[in-house]
């Protein structure tokens, strides 16, 4: 590589294109934020012998690495040594890059260039150029404007055509009509067919401003979509396939019924199946909302999404991929989602009202002037001025600019708004329904029983070798009291039952009622130290840190709240009592949640569902709006409009209040746009609107709504 003459050029001019290797790995770096991080990541990676190149994209918080044949774990380890967290991204799931966005930018560039040049020439005409000079200016303007419009306004023409073909009117029909008529009439007049003023600059300005609105809309949606795709790509589920000679890691998508897979403690089941050997405790909370794990052994059916907590098991795959209960649920969600996307946003409603009005007004003006003056060119000219002035330039910007600003602000706070109309639906919410496990609570349990120091030390000595939630709670309790776990020997984990070990001469058991202690319904587990009666252990769920503040804030704003849970009545009542939520429903099936929400909606309420599990997806899909924590299951996140990436429920209130502020701003903007029309349309109908007035009104109203949108919220 040659050394460039000036240091600045060196960064700007990359080496010869052919020499730059293609990226083979894509890693997500959640924590990078500054220039220092960029160089330390790139240095850590390029220091590895097999890495050809590494390039950080700070905007997307990703690094693309060219290292053919190198396992991504090597890269992740190298980054961990440099102090950076990294997760591999599955490139197949990220989907192709949005080329449409770049194409729109190109069109904006072309429209902007043409608009500025044509406006300069129009200034000459407006300031009094006549005769041959004006003619030359018109011809040159036409040479620039016609190809520019033909290229840059294609998105509007395409959309208008498809709407007309379906027998509908949308916002793009009057837009296309105005652009085509204005260009056509100006072309005729450039060749001397009429002596009216030209509209080329108006046609181009229309195209330019509307393209900017289109671009913002698409960019906002694209950012949310790519972040959602990233979430999915992070989780590329894998499976441990049992083959003739050992096990092999494969992608969960490649499993077929009849495969045998091994599940280690802590693994999430990638497919539905039957346990062939071994036993374990299954965490089904993601599917049913139940907080207590259930034991499972040989012959039991298991479902994708469940987590094996204790023993390792071998499972025969019965249904995989799209056939699993989990995916079928996701499909139900997709159908319900399609229903929700039919919700007409405020821009659509305005357009539905507006489009016929604009056409009617334009036609009436043409007819009226033709009747009165009998001059077809003059009438067409006035009609064009009406179409250009009423054209929803500001209206087309009013809504997308606000939603881009609002979603961008939420995204910086770790709140991902996935759907277009989510802000609007969120702003109308009056009832919030929460799921319990994993949403209001952290999904972890804590030890509610106070144990003596010695007992706790013994219990922690056993528990620190297990992934069972109760065991973790015991270790956490011991840590909190600074008690060192006792030394135990011969520890064995009996999946579905508990832990057993010896301490000195005593046999110690920690496990479920009926095994480590008397069979009873009350406590979750017993600790049998071989010394005195077994001690009962009670657990309570841990309420997530931001939950209480969120619930209080919602109540202060007069929101109705409800707790919809699949868990038992006792656990539900405890959380509902602690948070002061009166409407608490326990043992709800997924259908039960859907029915509850449907009832409320039928009663005229607007319901927001907040949930993370598979049993919530139905509710998330039928509710007016849905929020899911980032820790939620894939299916729940895809059913939700908003995903909280930050953790904690604080984002629920942020999203709701921002949505309300954004809606108020959108209405304001539409009001401003309409106000401009109310002033300028009478002028246009009466024939006082010259192209100069039209250009001024259009630019001013577009700039006003844009400024109003970027003004600080609240």
């Amino acid at each position: 590589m040659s050394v460039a003459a000036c240091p600045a050029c060196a960064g700007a001019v990359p080496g010869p294109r052919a020499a730059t290797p293609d990226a083979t790995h894509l890693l997500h770096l959640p924590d990078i934020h500054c220039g220092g991080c960029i160089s330390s990541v790139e240095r850590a990676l390029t220091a590895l012998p097999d890495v050809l190149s590494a390039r950080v994209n700070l905007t997307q918080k990703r690094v693309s690495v060219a290292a053919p044949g190198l396992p991504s774990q090597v890269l992740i380890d190298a980054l961990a040594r440099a102090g950076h967290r990294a997760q591999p991204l599955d490139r197949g799931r990220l989907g192709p890059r949005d080329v449409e966005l770049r194409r729109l930018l190109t069109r904006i560039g072309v429209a902007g260039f043409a608009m500025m040049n044509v406006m300069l020439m129009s200034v000459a005409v407006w300031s009094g150029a006549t005769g041959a000079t004006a003619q030359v200016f018109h011809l040159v303007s036409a040479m620039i404007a016609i190809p520019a419009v033909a290229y840059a306004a294609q998105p509007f023409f395409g959309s208008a055509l498809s709407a007309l073909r379906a027998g509908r009117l949308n916002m793009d029909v009057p837009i296309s009509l105005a652009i085509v008529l204005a260009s056509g009439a100006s072309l005729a007049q450039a060749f001397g067919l009429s002596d009216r003023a030209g509209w080329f600059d108006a046609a181009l300005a229309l195209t330019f401003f509307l393209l900017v609105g289109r671009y913002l809309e698409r960019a906002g949606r694209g950012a949310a979509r790519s972040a959602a795709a990233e979430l999915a790509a992070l989780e590329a589920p894998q499976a441990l396939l049992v083959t003739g000679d050992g096990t092999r890691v494969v992608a969960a998508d490649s499993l077929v019924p009849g495969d045998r897979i091994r599940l280690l403690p802590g693994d999430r089941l990638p497919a539905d199946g039957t346990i062939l050997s071994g036993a374990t405790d299954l965490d089904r909370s993601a599917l049913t909302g139940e907080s207590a794990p259930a034991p499972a052994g040989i012959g039991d059916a298991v479902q994708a999404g469940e987590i094996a907590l204790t023993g390792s098991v071998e499972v025969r795959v019965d249904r995989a991929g799209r056939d699993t209960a989990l995916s079928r649920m996701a499909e139900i969600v997709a159908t319900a989602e399609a229903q929700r996307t039919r919700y007409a946003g405020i821009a659509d409603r305005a357009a539905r009202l507006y489009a016929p009005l604009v056409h009617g007004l334009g036609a009436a003006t043409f007819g009226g002037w033709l009747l009165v003056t009998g001059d077809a060119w003059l009438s067409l000219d006035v009609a064009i001025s009406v179409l250009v002035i009423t054209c929803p330039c500001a209206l087309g910007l009013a809504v997308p600019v606000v939603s881009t600003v609002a979603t961008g602000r939420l995204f910086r706070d770790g709140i991902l708004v996935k759907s277009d109309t989510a802000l609007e639906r969120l702003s109308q919410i009056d009832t919030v329904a929460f799921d319990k496990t994993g949403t209001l609570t952290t999904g972890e349990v804590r030890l509610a029983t106070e144990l003596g120091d010695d007992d706790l030390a013994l219990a922690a000595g056993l528990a620190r070798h297990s992934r069972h939630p109760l065991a973790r709670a015991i270790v956490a309790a011991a840590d909190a009291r600074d008690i060192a776990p006792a030394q135990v020997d011969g520890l064995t984990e009996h999946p579905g039952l508990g832990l057993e070990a010896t301490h000195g001469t005593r046999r110690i058991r920690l496990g479920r009622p009926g095994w480590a202690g008397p069979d009873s319904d009350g406590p979750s587990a017993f600790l049998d130290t071989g010394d005195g009666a077994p001690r009962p252990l009670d657990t309570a769920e841990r309420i997530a840190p931001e939950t209480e503040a969120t619930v209080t804030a919602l109540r202060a704003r007069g929101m109705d709240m409800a707790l919809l849970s699949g868990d038992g009545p006792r656990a539900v009542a405890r959380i509902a009592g602690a948070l002061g939520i009166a409407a608490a429903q326990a043992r709800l099936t997924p259908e039960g949640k859907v029915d509850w929400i449907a009832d409320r909606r039928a009663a005229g309420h607007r319901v927001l569902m907040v949930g993370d599990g598979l049993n919530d997806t139905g509710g998330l899909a039928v509710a007016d709006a849905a929020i899911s924590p980032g820790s939620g299951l894939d299916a729940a996140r895809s059913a939700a409009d908003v995903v909280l990436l930050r953790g904690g429920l604080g984002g629920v209130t942020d999203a709701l209040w921002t949505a309300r502020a954004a809606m108020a701003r959108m209405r304001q903007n539409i009001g401003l746009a309409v106000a401009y029309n109310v002033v300028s349309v009478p002028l246009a109908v009466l024939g006082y609107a010259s192209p100069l007035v039209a250009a001024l009104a259009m630019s001013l109203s577009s700039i006003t709504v844009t400024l109003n949108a970027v003004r600080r919220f609240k």
Partner: protein
Amino acid sequence: MNVLTILIPVSTGLGLLGLGAFLWTLRAGQYEDPAGDQARALSDEHDDHPAPQAHESS
């Protein structure tokens, strides 16, 4: 007014130059990572040895 025959092509040409420059920046991927470019501009790491760019061929 004959001066127009020179000035109009000149002004249009300058405009086209600007458009060309914009399209070039777009194609060269200069809008892919605005936050990163901001930070890189201040770093003198690659001043003497420009880094090869990896292409995201996704």
